[in-house]
């Protein structure tokens, strides 16, 4: 089993209400899926906003690693290494 990497989950303003106002979470995870699960263990409503009940990304949320959409990498199975930043980018509509 891989050692978990220390990664940062970047929380946008629109979702900070789900994690007590934090703009980032420091997590140990080897994949995007594991990072979201670790975040969900601390802040359940955050992962509920990002993922469906069957663990898929919702259509109004994107996740980026190294500025790439994880859809274009290995999806939620995209591997993470120490120092990686995982960006949550939900749709917002204000103008």
């Amino acid at each position, binding site marked *: 089993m891989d050692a978990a990497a220390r990664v940062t989950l970047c929380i*946008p303003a629109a979702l900070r209400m789900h994690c007590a106002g934090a703009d980032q979470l420091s997590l140990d995870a080897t994949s995007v899926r594991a990072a979201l699960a670790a975040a969900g263990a601390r802040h359940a409503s955050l992962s509920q906003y990002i993922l469906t009940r069957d663990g898929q990304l919702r259509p109004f949320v994107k996740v980026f690693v190294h500025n*790439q959409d994880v859809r274009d990498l290995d999806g939620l199975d995209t591997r993470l290494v120490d120092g990686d930043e995982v*960006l949550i980018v939900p749709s917002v*509509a204000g*103008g």
Partner: protein
Amino acid sequence: MKASDRRLAELRAEIPEVAPADARALAQQGAILIDVRDADETAQGVADGARVLGRSFLELRIEDAAPDPAQPLLVMCGSGVRSLFAAAGLRQLGYRDVRSVAGGFNAWKDAGLPFHLPKVLDANARLRYARQLNLPEVGEAGQRKLLDARVLLIGAGGLGAPAGLYLAAAGVGTLGIVDHDVVERSNLNRQVIHADGRVGQPKVESAREALLALNPDIRVETHAMHLSPDNVDALFAQYDVIVDGSDNFDAHYLANDTCVRLGLPCVHGSIYRFDAQVSVFWPAAPGGGPCYRCLYAAPPPPELAPSCNEAGVLGVVPGVVGLLEATEALKLVLGIGRPLIGRLLCYDALAMRFRELALRPDPHCVLCGAGHSPSADVKPHEPTHHPA
């Protein structure tokens, strides 16, 4: 013999000349036809396909028009004399295949070859736009593109206000504004196109007054209505570029879906508190590109959508984002730079950080993905599926 006559004789021996009809044929095969005449001369007509660079800044501007020194260049003036001097200058810069059009534009016209009358900038316009006319990326040809352009602003709110002001100032010839709202005092911390004395007025009228006060030479078309699936096609079809400054998901999706169907670029901006997103969605772009549904296939259900009215906004954030949208709109009209196609610019004003995220067309996009016909698959505003 005068020095200029002696030099001219030397140039005639040095620089190959080409007859206008042959120049046209070469231009159609990829040679660049360059017009070096002054503005008052080109106002009388410009050969079709010619790039009007003028003589004064020719050496400074040529590399933008012809980055490859192996590219064949055809230089045209009024009668075929100044073009010899200009051609010599281009050869000194390293261009290897430079020819002069014999007899210049006069001979071109006499030969019955096609030309057009460009829109002329009057003295007032030359003063108004002087600072941007000096930019090689704009110049007279670019300014005429701006004057010919038709740009539609969706919303005269936080994003549309700054975008509209700067597009008007830049001389976008026709600015449309669609907004069904009236000006409220609570708008004025960010919607700088309006004014305290116009509270209660329809926003489109208030915006029109401000835009024409800034630049009376443009045309402002007001559409005081709620954008809906029933009116959106007829409205968008009148414009070249759509600047989406709307403040709700329904309008963002309606704008995107309509732009995809009509092949129009949609300059998108959206904000939440100190965060913002900007991109250009344009699947019909020459190199292709994603649409908004490639990024977000569907909006959040209302109970999950972040409420913008409750969220609050500091006016500078939509100010910055509206100007980023205006910048993209101007680049699209001018055909310069790299538009934000396939890139999502995320702005965090509190951290003062811009991140650029890569976006690709989604092959499974219900609107523009492979095998989907934008006109058939998704109707504007079709209810979207939200997995629980």
